C-alpha cells in the first residue's frame, strides 16, 4: 500500500467528506477453526472470546508473557471460529506465538493473509458506494459487526469497521478479485468523490479519531495501562500476559497516554520529549498537523505525577520548544446522524 496517491491532506479530506478507497492487503488475516478455536482465542488475546456473539468484531491486544503489548488486533467471531486481523509488521511474530499455542492446545490455524486481500471504503458516502457495488447487504450492519456474502467479486467478509473515524467498511476479498473490486469502487464512486487513499492519510485520520497505532502508542516496552488501552482487557481467562496484567492493575501506571494540542507551525513527532519545568516528563508517541482542525495534535506518554499539578507542558521539537495543552481523545468525532447505529455493548 502506498503512503500516498496524490497528497495526504486531500486524501484525508476525501475520507472526511466523501469516500476513500484503501488497499489494506498488507495486514495479516488469521483464522482459528474447529472445536479448539475458542480455547486458542482465549489464550492469545485479551478480549472475552467466549462471550462474543457470532457476527461481532472487537478490538483486542496480544501481549507478551511480561504483559507488554505485542500487537493490537481486531477479532471477529465467525460461525466456525475466529478471525484475527493483525498488523503486517507483527505478522511473523504473532503467528509464531499463535502456532506454538495452537500446537499445544490442538487447535487449527489458517493464515489467510496471502489468499485474501483487503479493501476498505471509508467516509460518509461509503454506504452508498457499497450499494452501487451490489454489496447493499452490508449496509444493514451495525458498527463493529460483520457479515459474509456472495458478490460479483467472489465470497466476501465485510465488517463495518475502520481506522479513520468515519463510517465505513473493511472487505476481505479473494486475492485474485482485489484489483477488480478496488477499480470498481473507484469507477462506481467517481461522482461520490471516491479516490484512492494511502497510508499517510490513514495515519492522520486515525490520529484525529484517537485510535492507537502499533509502534507508536504501544509496543513491547509498554503495558496496556500505560497506553490507556485498559478497555481492551476484557478477558478473565488465563491468556498470555494475564498474570502480569493482574499485577499492573493494582497500582496506577507511572506514565499514561495523553492527548495534546501543540502550538506553533512545527509538527510534534514520535520521540520528541515532553518537558515541564525543564525536566523531561514524557515522550511523543504520534503527532501530526490535523487537517480537520488545522492545528498540531499529538499523543504522548507522560508521567502521571505531573498531570494533576497543572504545570505547563512543552514539546521539544529539534531546536525549538512549543507549548502543549492537555486535551481528551478523540480529537475528532463524526456526527453520527447519518452513520450506523452504535451497537449495544455486549
Amino acid at each position, binding site marked *: 500500500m502506498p503512503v500516498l496517491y496524490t*497528497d495526504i*491532506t486531500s486524501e484525508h479530506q476525501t475520507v472526511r467528506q466523501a469516500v476513500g478507497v484503501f488497499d489494506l492487503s498488507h495486514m495479516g488475516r488469521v483464522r482459528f477453526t474447529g472445536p479448539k478455536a475458542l480455547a486458542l482465542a482465549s489464550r492469545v488475546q485479551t478480549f472475552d472470546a467466549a462471550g462474543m456473539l457470532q457476527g461481532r468484531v472487537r478490538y483486542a491486544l496480544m501481549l507478551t508473557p511480561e504483559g507488554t503489548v505485542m500487537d493490537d488486533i481486531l477479532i471477529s467471531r465467525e460461525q466456525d471460529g475466529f478471525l484475527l486481523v493483525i498488523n503486517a509488521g507483527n505478522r511473523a511474530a504473532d503467528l509464531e506465538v499463535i502456532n506454538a499455542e495452537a500446537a499445544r492446545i490442538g487447535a487449527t490455524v489458517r493464515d489467510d493473509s496471502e489468499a485474501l486481500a483487503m479493501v476498505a471504503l471509508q467516509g460518509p458516502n461509503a454506504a452508498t458506494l457499497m450499494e452501487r457495488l451490489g454489496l447493499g447487504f452490508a449496509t444493514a450492519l451495525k458498527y463493529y459487526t460483520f457479515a459474509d456474502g456472495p458478490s460479483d467479486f467472489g465470497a466476501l467478509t465485510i465488517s463495518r469497521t475502520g481506522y479513520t473515524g468515519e463510517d465505513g467498511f473493511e472487505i476481505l476479498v479473494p486475492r485474485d478479485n482485489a484489483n477488480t473490486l478496488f477499480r470498481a469502487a473507484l469507477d462506481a464512486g467517481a461522482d461520490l468523490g471516491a479516490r484512492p487513499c494511502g497510508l*499517510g492519510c490513514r495515519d492522520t485520520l486515525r490520529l484525529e479519531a484517537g485510535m492507537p497505532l502499533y509502534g507508536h502508542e504501544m509496543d513491547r516496552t509498554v503495558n496496556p495501562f500505560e497506553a490507556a488501552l485498559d478497555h481492551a482487557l476484557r478477558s478473565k481467562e488465563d491468556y498470555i500476559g494475564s498474570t502480569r496484567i493482574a499485577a499492573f492493575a493494582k497500582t496506577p501506571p507511572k506514565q499514561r497516554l495523553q492527548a495534546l494540542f501543540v502550538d506553533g507551525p*512545527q*509538527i510534534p513527532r514520535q520521540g520528541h520529549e515532553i518537558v515541564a519545568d525543564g525536566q523531561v516528563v514524557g515522550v511523543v508517541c504520534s503527532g501530526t498537523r490535523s487537517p480537520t482542525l488545522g492545528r498540531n495534535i499529538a499523543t504522548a506518554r507522560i508521567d502521571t505525577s505531573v498531570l494533576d499539578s497543572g504545570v505547563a507542558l512543552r514539546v521539544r521539537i529539534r531546536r525549538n520548544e512549543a507549548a502543549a495543552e492537555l486535551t481528551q481523545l478523540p480529537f475528532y468525532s463524526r456526527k453520527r446522524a447519518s452513520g450506523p447505529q452504535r451497537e449495544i455493548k455486549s
Partner: protein
Amino acid sequence: MTNPKDLKYSEHDEWLRLDADGVHAWVGITAQAVEALSDLVFLDLPEVGKEIQQGEVFGEIESVKAVADLYAPMTGEVVKRNDALIDDLAILKKDPYGAGWMLQIRVEKRSEADKLMQADAYASHLKSRADHH
C-alpha cells in the same frame, strides 16, 4: 517536470542561480523536492548576515510527512531571506524557481559552483535515485 537550464543543482535538491555580477546567488529547492515533500507546514531559514557553508545544513523544511534538512549549495553570507515564503509555503508549489526562492547569498568562492550539477546531470541524478528505490 523539466528543470531550468540556467540553474545549477545539488544532490540534495537545492538549486542555485548565479547573478550576472558573479557575486550574488539565489538559492531554493527544486520542484521535485517540493513534490516529494508535499503538504508543507514549516520552513526554517537563517537570518540575514549569517554565513552558510557549501554542503552543510542551513535550514529545514517540514511537511506533514517528514522533516528535511536544507543543504547550502555554495558558501556565502545571507544577504536576503524570503520571509514571504516562510509565511506562505504554497508559493513553493506554484513557483519553486521564482517566487519560491529562499535566500540570496554573497558567494565567497565561485569555483565551488563547479561541484554543482547542470540541469541534465541533475535529471540523471534523480533518475538513478528513483531506480534505487
